[in-house]
Protein backbone atom coordinates (compact mmCIF):
# COMPACT_ATOMS: atom_id res chain seq x y z
CA UNK A 1 0.00 0.00 0.00
CA UNK A 2 1.40 3.37 -0.91
CA UNK A 3 1.08 6.50 1.18
CA UNK A 4 1.51 10.18 0.39
CA UNK A 5 4.49 10.68 2.72
CA UNK A 6 6.54 7.93 1.06
CA UNK A 7 5.43 9.11 -2.35
CA UNK A 8 6.61 12.67 -1.64
CA UNK A 9 9.87 11.55 -0.06
CA UNK A 10 10.62 9.20 -2.95
CA UNK A 11 9.96 11.91 -5.51
CA UNK A 12 12.13 14.37 -3.62
CA UNK A 13 15.01 11.90 -3.71
CA UNK A 14 14.72 11.78 -7.50
CA UNK A 15 15.33 15.52 -7.87
CA UNK A 16 19.05 15.83 -7.44
CA UNK A 17 18.95 19.60 -7.07
CA UNK A 18 16.29 19.72 -4.30
CA UNK A 19 17.35 19.80 -0.64
CA UNK A 20 15.85 16.97 1.49
CA UNK A 21 12.79 18.10 3.44
CA UNK A 22 11.86 20.82 0.93
CA UNK A 23 8.85 19.09 -0.60
CA UNK A 24 5.55 18.29 1.06
CA UNK A 25 2.24 17.05 -0.39
CA UNK A 26 0.96 20.62 -0.86
CA UNK A 27 4.03 21.82 -2.75
CA UNK A 28 3.30 23.10 -6.23
CA UNK A 29 5.88 21.01 -8.05
CA UNK A 30 6.31 23.61 -10.79
CA UNK A 31 7.62 26.03 -8.17
CA UNK A 32 10.69 23.84 -7.64
CA UNK A 33 13.73 26.04 -8.19
CA UNK A 34 14.90 25.77 -11.81
CA UNK A 35 11.81 23.79 -12.89
CA UNK A 36 12.37 22.39 -16.38
CA UNK A 37 10.99 19.81 -18.76
CA UNK A 38 13.49 17.34 -17.31
CA UNK A 39 11.68 17.56 -13.94
CA UNK A 40 8.46 16.53 -15.73
CA UNK A 41 10.26 13.49 -17.15
CA UNK A 42 11.63 12.64 -13.71
CA UNK A 43 8.09 12.67 -12.27
CA UNK A 44 6.74 10.42 -15.04
CA UNK A 45 9.68 8.03 -14.68
CA UNK A 46 9.49 7.95 -10.87
CA UNK A 47 5.79 7.05 -10.83
CA UNK A 48 6.12 4.51 -13.63
CA UNK A 49 9.19 2.74 -12.22
CA UNK A 50 8.01 2.69 -8.58
CA UNK A 51 4.24 2.45 -8.80
CA UNK A 52 3.74 1.01 -12.28
CA UNK A 53 1.36 3.80 -13.28
CA UNK A 54 2.10 5.79 -16.41
CA UNK A 55 1.11 9.46 -16.39
CA UNK A 56 0.82 11.27 -19.72
CA UNK A 57 1.29 14.94 -20.58
CA UNK A 58 -2.38 15.74 -19.93
CA UNK A 59 -2.26 14.12 -16.47
CA UNK A 60 0.76 16.20 -15.60
CA UNK A 61 -0.84 19.38 -16.92
CA UNK A 62 -3.93 18.83 -14.78
CA UNK A 63 -1.88 18.49 -11.59
CA UNK A 64 -0.57 21.35 -9.47
CA UNK A 65 0.62 19.80 -6.22
CA UNK A 66 2.34 16.55 -5.30
CA UNK A 67 -0.95 15.56 -3.67
CA UNK A 68 -2.59 15.87 -7.12
CA UNK A 69 0.08 13.61 -8.65
CA UNK A 70 -0.53 11.11 -5.87
CA UNK A 71 -4.29 11.12 -6.50
CA UNK A 72 -3.80 10.56 -10.24
CA UNK A 73 -1.44 7.69 -9.49
CA UNK A 74 -3.95 6.05 -7.12
CA UNK A 75 -6.68 6.52 -9.72
CA UNK A 76 -4.53 4.78 -12.38
CA UNK A 77 -3.87 1.86 -10.07
CA UNK A 78 -7.58 1.13 -9.59
Amino acid at each position, binding site marked *: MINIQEFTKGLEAEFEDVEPGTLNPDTNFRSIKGW*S*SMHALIIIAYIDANYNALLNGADLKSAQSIQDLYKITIEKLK
Partner: protein
Amino acid sequence: MKEFTTKMSAYIKAISYYLPEKIFSNEDFFKTFPDSITQKENYLRIGVQERHIVEENITASDIGVIAGLNLFKEHNIKPEEIDFLLFCSLEFDYHFPSSCSIIQAKLNLPKSCGATDYNLGCSGYIYGLGIAKGLIESLGMKNVLLITASTLSKKIHPKDKSSRFIFGDASAATLISSSEKNNGLGSFVFGTDGKKAEKIIIKDGAARNPISKDSYIEIEDESGNITSNAHLQMEGTGVFYFGLKTIPIMIEDVIKKEKIKLEEIDLFIFHQANLFLISTVCTKLNIPKEKVYNYMEKVGNTVASSIPITLYEAMKEGKAKPGQKILLAGFGVGLSWGATIIEL
Protein backbone atom coordinates in the same frame (compact mmCIF):
# COMPACT_ATOMS: atom_id res chain seq x y z
CA MET B 1 17.74 -35.32 -59.68
CA LYS B 2 16.62 -33.38 -56.67
CA GLU B 3 18.63 -30.27 -56.03
CA PHE B 4 19.64 -29.49 -52.48
CA THR B 5 19.75 -25.84 -51.67
CA THR B 6 20.85 -24.46 -48.34
CA LYS B 7 18.61 -21.78 -46.94
CA MET B 8 20.64 -18.61 -46.62
CA SER B 9 20.21 -16.36 -43.60
CA ALA B 10 20.99 -12.68 -43.14
CA TYR B 11 23.52 -11.41 -40.59
CA ILE B 12 25.37 -8.20 -39.81
CA LYS B 13 28.78 -8.61 -41.36
CA ALA B 14 30.34 -5.20 -40.79
CA ILE B 15 29.63 -1.70 -39.44
CA SER B 16 31.48 1.61 -39.79
CA TYR B 17 30.44 5.11 -38.92
CA TYR B 18 31.32 8.75 -39.38
CA LEU B 19 31.12 11.81 -37.13
CA PRO B 20 31.50 15.35 -38.50
CA GLU B 21 34.56 17.18 -37.19
CA LYS B 22 32.89 20.15 -35.52
CA ILE B 23 31.98 19.55 -31.87
CA PHE B 24 29.34 21.31 -29.79
CA SER B 25 30.34 20.48 -26.21
CA ASN B 26 28.41 20.94 -22.97
CA GLU B 27 30.74 23.83 -22.22
CA ASP B 28 29.60 25.45 -25.49
CA PHE B 29 26.00 24.63 -24.60
CA PHE B 30 26.06 26.28 -21.18
CA LYS B 31 27.86 29.30 -22.68
CA THR B 32 25.08 29.58 -25.28
CA PHE B 33 22.31 29.06 -22.70
CA PRO B 34 23.72 30.47 -19.43
CA ASP B 35 20.31 30.26 -17.70
CA SER B 36 20.40 26.47 -18.08
CA ILE B 37 23.40 26.13 -15.79
CA THR B 38 21.09 25.92 -12.75
CA GLN B 39 19.66 22.72 -14.27
CA LYS B 40 23.05 21.27 -15.15
CA GLU B 41 22.59 18.16 -12.99
CA ASN B 42 19.32 17.34 -14.74
CA TYR B 43 20.77 17.90 -18.19
CA LEU B 44 23.63 15.57 -17.39
CA ARG B 45 21.20 12.74 -16.62
CA ILE B 46 20.37 12.65 -20.34
CA GLY B 47 23.89 11.28 -20.87
CA VAL B 48 25.44 13.63 -23.45
CA GLN B 49 28.75 15.50 -23.04
CA GLU B 50 29.31 16.51 -26.66
CA ARG B 51 27.78 16.18 -30.10
CA HIS B 52 29.13 16.51 -33.61
CA ILE B 53 27.60 19.03 -35.98
CA VAL B 54 27.79 19.21 -39.79
CA GLU B 55 28.62 22.37 -41.70
CA GLU B 56 25.61 24.09 -43.27
CA ASN B 57 26.46 23.00 -46.83
CA ILE B 58 26.84 19.29 -45.99
CA THR B 59 23.86 16.99 -46.57
CA ALA B 60 22.84 13.65 -45.10
CA SER B 61 23.83 11.91 -48.34
CA ASP B 62 27.30 13.50 -48.12
CA ILE B 63 27.98 12.03 -44.69
CA GLY B 64 26.26 8.78 -45.71
CA VAL B 65 28.83 8.45 -48.51
CA ILE B 66 31.68 8.95 -46.03
CA ALA B 67 30.30 6.19 -43.77
CA GLY B 68 30.09 3.92 -46.84
CA LEU B 69 33.69 4.67 -47.83
CA ASN B 70 34.79 4.04 -44.22
CA LEU B 71 33.05 0.66 -44.32
CA PHE B 72 34.76 -0.36 -47.58
CA LYS B 73 38.16 0.68 -46.25
CA GLU B 74 37.88 -0.60 -42.69
CA HIS B 75 36.52 -4.02 -43.64
CA ASN B 76 38.09 -4.46 -47.07
CA ILE B 77 34.78 -4.62 -48.93
CA LYS B 78 34.55 -3.94 -52.66
CA PRO B 79 31.74 -1.72 -53.99
CA GLU B 80 30.97 -4.26 -56.75
CA GLU B 81 29.91 -6.79 -54.08
CA ILE B 82 26.84 -4.71 -53.15
CA ASP B 83 23.50 -5.98 -54.51
CA PHE B 84 21.23 -3.46 -52.85
CA LEU B 85 21.54 -0.08 -51.15
CA LEU B 86 19.10 1.18 -48.51
CA PHE B 87 19.38 4.81 -47.42
CA CYS B 88 17.56 5.79 -44.24
CA SER B 89 17.30 9.47 -43.35
CA LEU B 90 14.90 12.27 -42.52
CA GLU B 91 16.70 14.65 -44.90
CA PHE B 92 17.12 14.18 -48.63
CA ASP B 93 19.08 16.16 -51.20
CA TYR B 94 16.23 16.77 -53.67
CA HIS B 95 12.49 16.19 -54.00
CA PHE B 96 13.72 13.64 -56.53
CA PRO B 97 15.76 11.70 -57.51
CA SER B 98 16.26 9.69 -54.35
CA SER B 99 19.45 10.34 -52.42
CA CYS B 100 20.34 6.66 -52.83
CA SER B 101 21.01 7.36 -56.54
CA ILE B 102 23.49 10.07 -55.58
CA ILE B 103 25.10 7.72 -53.06
CA GLN B 104 25.20 4.80 -55.52
CA ALA B 105 27.19 6.95 -57.96
CA LYS B 106 29.57 8.39 -55.37
CA LEU B 107 30.32 4.97 -53.86
CA ASN B 108 30.83 3.43 -57.33
CA LEU B 109 28.23 0.76 -56.65
CA PRO B 110 27.43 -1.34 -59.74
CA LYS B 111 24.53 -0.47 -62.03
CA SER B 112 23.02 -3.84 -61.17
CA CYS B 113 22.58 -2.58 -57.60
CA GLY B 114 19.02 -1.88 -56.49
CA ALA B 115 18.66 1.24 -54.35
CA THR B 116 15.96 2.99 -52.39
CA ASP B 117 15.54 5.68 -49.75
CA TYR B 118 13.19 5.44 -46.85
CA ASN B 119 12.14 8.21 -44.50
CA LEU B 120 12.43 7.12 -40.89
CA GLY B 121 14.20 8.38 -37.82
CA CYS B 122 15.11 6.57 -34.63
CA SER B 123 13.33 3.33 -35.54
CA GLY B 124 14.97 3.34 -39.00
CA TYR B 125 17.86 0.98 -38.30
CA ILE B 126 15.55 -1.84 -37.22
CA TYR B 127 13.40 -1.31 -40.32
CA GLY B 128 16.53 -1.40 -42.50
CA LEU B 129 17.67 -4.67 -40.96
CA GLY B 130 14.18 -6.12 -41.49
CA ILE B 131 14.08 -5.08 -45.15
CA ALA B 132 17.63 -6.40 -45.69
CA LYS B 133 16.64 -9.74 -44.15
CA GLY B 134 13.75 -9.94 -46.62
CA LEU B 135 15.98 -9.10 -49.58
CA ILE B 136 18.51 -11.76 -48.58
CA GLU B 137 16.28 -14.56 -47.33
CA SER B 138 13.40 -14.14 -49.81
CA LEU B 139 15.05 -12.67 -52.89
CA GLY B 140 18.42 -14.37 -52.62
CA MET B 141 20.59 -11.27 -52.45
CA LYS B 142 24.07 -11.58 -50.97
CA ASN B 143 25.10 -8.15 -49.76
CA VAL B 144 22.81 -5.31 -48.70
CA LEU B 145 24.34 -1.99 -47.74
CA LEU B 146 22.31 -0.05 -45.20
CA ILE B 147 23.31 3.58 -44.77
CA THR B 148 21.74 5.74 -42.05
CA ALA B 149 22.45 9.47 -41.81
CA SER B 150 21.22 12.45 -39.84
CA THR B 151 22.01 16.17 -40.15
CA LEU B 152 19.17 17.22 -37.89
CA SER B 153 21.26 20.00 -36.29
CA LYS B 154 20.40 22.08 -39.37
CA LYS B 155 16.69 21.74 -38.62
CA ILE B 156 16.84 22.61 -34.92
CA HIS B 157 15.91 26.19 -34.02
CA PRO B 158 19.00 27.96 -32.63
CA LYS B 159 17.02 28.78 -29.43
CA ASP B 160 15.68 25.23 -28.92
CA LYS B 161 17.68 24.27 -25.84
CA SER B 162 16.39 20.72 -25.36
CA SER B 163 16.94 19.55 -28.92
CA ARG B 164 20.30 21.28 -29.23
CA PHE B 165 21.40 19.44 -26.10
CA ILE B 166 20.21 16.02 -27.25
CA PHE B 167 20.86 15.62 -30.98
CA GLY B 168 24.14 15.07 -32.79
CA ASP B 169 24.83 14.52 -36.49
CA ALA B 170 26.33 11.25 -37.70
CA SER B 171 26.13 8.52 -40.32
CA ALA B 172 26.64 4.76 -40.24
CA ALA B 173 27.05 2.06 -42.85
CA THR B 174 26.14 -1.56 -42.16
CA LEU B 175 26.74 -4.50 -44.45
CA ILE B 176 24.12 -7.21 -44.12
CA SER B 177 25.21 -10.39 -45.87
CA SER B 178 23.95 -13.91 -46.52
CA SER B 179 25.33 -16.84 -44.62
CA GLU B 180 24.50 -20.48 -43.95
CA LYS B 181 24.47 -19.87 -40.23
CA ASN B 182 21.12 -19.24 -38.62
CA ASN B 183 19.84 -16.49 -36.33
CA GLY B 184 22.11 -13.71 -37.55
CA LEU B 185 18.97 -11.62 -37.73
CA GLY B 186 16.21 -13.30 -35.74
CA SER B 187 12.63 -12.26 -35.06
CA PHE B 188 11.36 -8.74 -35.68
CA VAL B 189 8.50 -6.65 -34.37
CA PHE B 190 7.43 -3.31 -35.81
CA GLY B 191 4.84 -0.70 -34.89
CA THR B 192 3.38 2.65 -35.94
CA ASP B 193 1.09 5.17 -34.26
CA GLY B 194 0.34 7.91 -36.79
CA LYS B 195 -2.22 9.48 -34.45
CA LYS B 196 0.78 10.84 -32.57
CA ALA B 197 2.56 12.05 -35.73
CA GLU B 198 2.78 15.61 -34.41
CA LYS B 199 4.77 14.61 -31.31
CA ILE B 200 7.97 14.85 -33.40
CA ILE B 201 7.55 16.90 -36.55
CA ILE B 202 8.85 19.57 -38.90
CA LYS B 203 5.58 21.01 -40.15
CA ASP B 204 6.57 23.33 -42.99
CA GLY B 205 8.67 22.98 -46.10
CA ALA B 206 7.25 19.84 -47.71
CA ALA B 207 4.04 19.23 -49.69
CA ARG B 208 1.44 19.84 -46.97
CA ASN B 209 2.66 23.26 -45.81
CA PRO B 210 5.01 25.02 -48.23
CA ILE B 211 7.56 27.21 -46.52
CA SER B 212 6.45 30.82 -46.02
CA LYS B 213 7.48 33.84 -43.96
CA ASP B 214 5.12 32.64 -41.23
CA SER B 215 7.01 29.37 -41.03
CA TYR B 216 9.73 31.18 -39.11
CA ILE B 217 7.53 32.81 -36.46
CA GLU B 218 8.94 31.81 -33.10
CA ILE B 219 6.82 29.44 -31.01
CA GLU B 220 7.52 28.67 -27.35
CA ASP B 221 6.65 25.13 -26.29
CA GLU B 222 5.41 24.06 -22.84
CA SER B 223 8.97 23.60 -21.60
CA GLY B 224 10.17 27.03 -22.71
CA ASN B 225 12.02 25.88 -25.83
CA ILE B 226 11.77 28.23 -28.79
CA THR B 227 11.11 26.68 -32.19
CA SER B 228 9.11 27.42 -35.37
CA ASN B 229 7.11 25.52 -37.97
CA ALA B 230 10.20 25.43 -40.18
CA HIS B 231 12.16 23.66 -37.44
CA LEU B 232 12.02 20.43 -35.47
CA GLN B 233 9.25 20.36 -32.89
CA MET B 234 9.38 17.65 -30.29
CA GLU B 235 7.03 17.32 -27.35
CA GLY B 236 9.48 15.96 -24.81
CA THR B 237 6.98 14.77 -22.21
CA GLY B 238 4.83 13.02 -24.84
CA VAL B 239 7.80 11.30 -26.43
CA PHE B 240 9.08 10.16 -23.03
CA TYR B 241 5.65 8.75 -22.20
CA PHE B 242 5.62 6.99 -25.58
CA GLY B 243 9.03 5.45 -24.84
CA LEU B 244 8.04 4.18 -21.40
CA LYS B 245 4.83 2.73 -22.75
CA THR B 246 6.11 1.22 -26.00
CA ILE B 247 9.58 -0.13 -25.25
CA PRO B 248 8.57 -2.72 -22.59
CA ILE B 249 5.78 -4.03 -24.83
CA MET B 250 7.98 -4.39 -27.90
CA ILE B 251 10.68 -6.14 -25.88
CA GLU B 252 8.11 -8.57 -24.54
CA ASP B 253 6.70 -9.13 -28.05
CA VAL B 254 10.03 -9.76 -29.78
CA ILE B 255 11.13 -12.16 -27.04
CA LYS B 256 7.88 -14.06 -27.31
CA LYS B 257 8.26 -14.23 -31.09
CA GLU B 258 11.81 -15.57 -30.73
CA LYS B 259 10.51 -18.10 -28.17
CA ILE B 260 13.07 -17.20 -25.51
CA LYS B 261 13.05 -15.57 -22.08
CA LEU B 262 14.21 -12.08 -21.16
CA GLU B 263 17.04 -13.59 -19.08
CA GLU B 264 18.43 -15.30 -22.20
CA ILE B 265 19.25 -11.94 -23.78
CA ASP B 266 22.97 -11.25 -23.24
CA LEU B 267 23.01 -7.62 -24.30
CA PHE B 268 20.47 -4.86 -24.84
CA ILE B 269 21.16 -1.98 -27.22
CA PHE B 270 18.49 0.68 -27.31
CA HIS B 271 18.21 3.69 -29.54
CA GLN B 272 20.19 6.31 -27.63
CA ALA B 273 17.37 8.79 -27.13
CA ASN B 274 18.05 9.68 -23.54
CA LEU B 275 19.91 7.55 -21.00
CA PHE B 276 17.47 8.53 -18.28
CA LEU B 277 14.66 6.98 -20.34
CA ILE B 278 16.72 3.82 -20.95
CA SER B 279 17.58 3.40 -17.27
CA THR B 280 13.91 3.87 -16.30
CA VAL B 281 12.85 1.17 -18.78
CA CYS B 282 15.54 -1.17 -17.46
CA THR B 283 14.49 -0.61 -13.83
CA LYS B 284 10.92 -1.37 -14.80
CA LEU B 285 11.84 -4.58 -16.62
CA ASN B 286 14.50 -5.67 -14.09
CA ILE B 287 17.19 -5.66 -16.76
CA PRO B 288 20.59 -5.61 -15.01
CA LYS B 289 22.77 -2.59 -15.86
CA GLU B 290 25.66 -4.75 -17.03
CA LYS B 291 23.49 -6.17 -19.80
CA VAL B 292 22.86 -2.73 -21.30
CA TYR B 293 25.43 -0.99 -23.48
CA ASN B 294 25.11 2.73 -24.11
CA TYR B 295 27.16 5.07 -26.23
CA MET B 296 25.74 8.55 -26.07
CA GLU B 297 28.25 10.68 -24.20
CA LYS B 298 30.41 11.64 -27.18
CA VAL B 299 27.79 11.63 -29.92
CA GLY B 300 24.33 12.50 -28.53
CA ASN B 301 21.17 11.16 -30.11
CA THR B 302 22.23 10.42 -33.69
CA VAL B 303 18.74 9.30 -34.82
CA ALA B 304 18.86 6.18 -37.07
CA SER B 305 22.63 5.83 -36.63
CA SER B 306 22.52 5.52 -32.84
CA ILE B 307 22.02 1.74 -32.76
CA PRO B 308 24.77 0.87 -35.31
CA ILE B 309 27.21 3.30 -33.62
CA THR B 310 26.47 1.79 -30.21
CA LEU B 311 26.73 -1.76 -31.58
CA TYR B 312 30.06 -0.91 -33.23
CA GLU B 313 31.45 0.45 -29.96
CA ALA B 314 30.08 -2.54 -28.01
CA MET B 315 31.91 -4.89 -30.40
CA LYS B 316 35.10 -2.82 -30.18
CA GLU B 317 34.98 -2.92 -26.40
CA GLY B 318 34.34 -6.67 -26.39
CA LYS B 319 30.89 -6.28 -24.84
CA ALA B 320 29.09 -7.56 -27.95
CA LYS B 321 30.50 -10.92 -28.96
CA PRO B 322 29.65 -13.69 -31.44
CA GLY B 323 27.25 -16.25 -29.99
CA GLN B 324 25.45 -13.75 -27.78
CA LYS B 325 21.81 -12.90 -28.19
CA ILE B 326 21.61 -9.15 -28.62
CA LEU B 327 18.33 -7.28 -28.51
CA LEU B 328 18.13 -4.06 -30.54
CA ALA B 329 15.23 -1.65 -30.11
CA GLY B 330 14.51 1.63 -31.91
CA PHE B 331 11.66 4.12 -31.39
CA GLY B 332 10.88 7.66 -32.44
CA VAL B 333 9.42 9.93 -35.14
CA GLY B 334 6.25 8.56 -36.73
CA LEU B 335 5.62 7.59 -34.09
CA SER B 336 7.34 4.40 -35.15
CA TRP B 337 9.16 1.57 -33.41
CA GLY B 338 10.84 -1.76 -34.02
CA ALA B 339 12.91 -4.41 -32.26
CA THR B 340 14.90 -7.45 -33.26
CA ILE B 341 17.17 -10.08 -31.76
CA ILE B 342 20.51 -10.64 -33.49
CA GLU B 343 23.60 -12.80 -33.21
CA LEU B 344 26.91 -11.53 -34.54
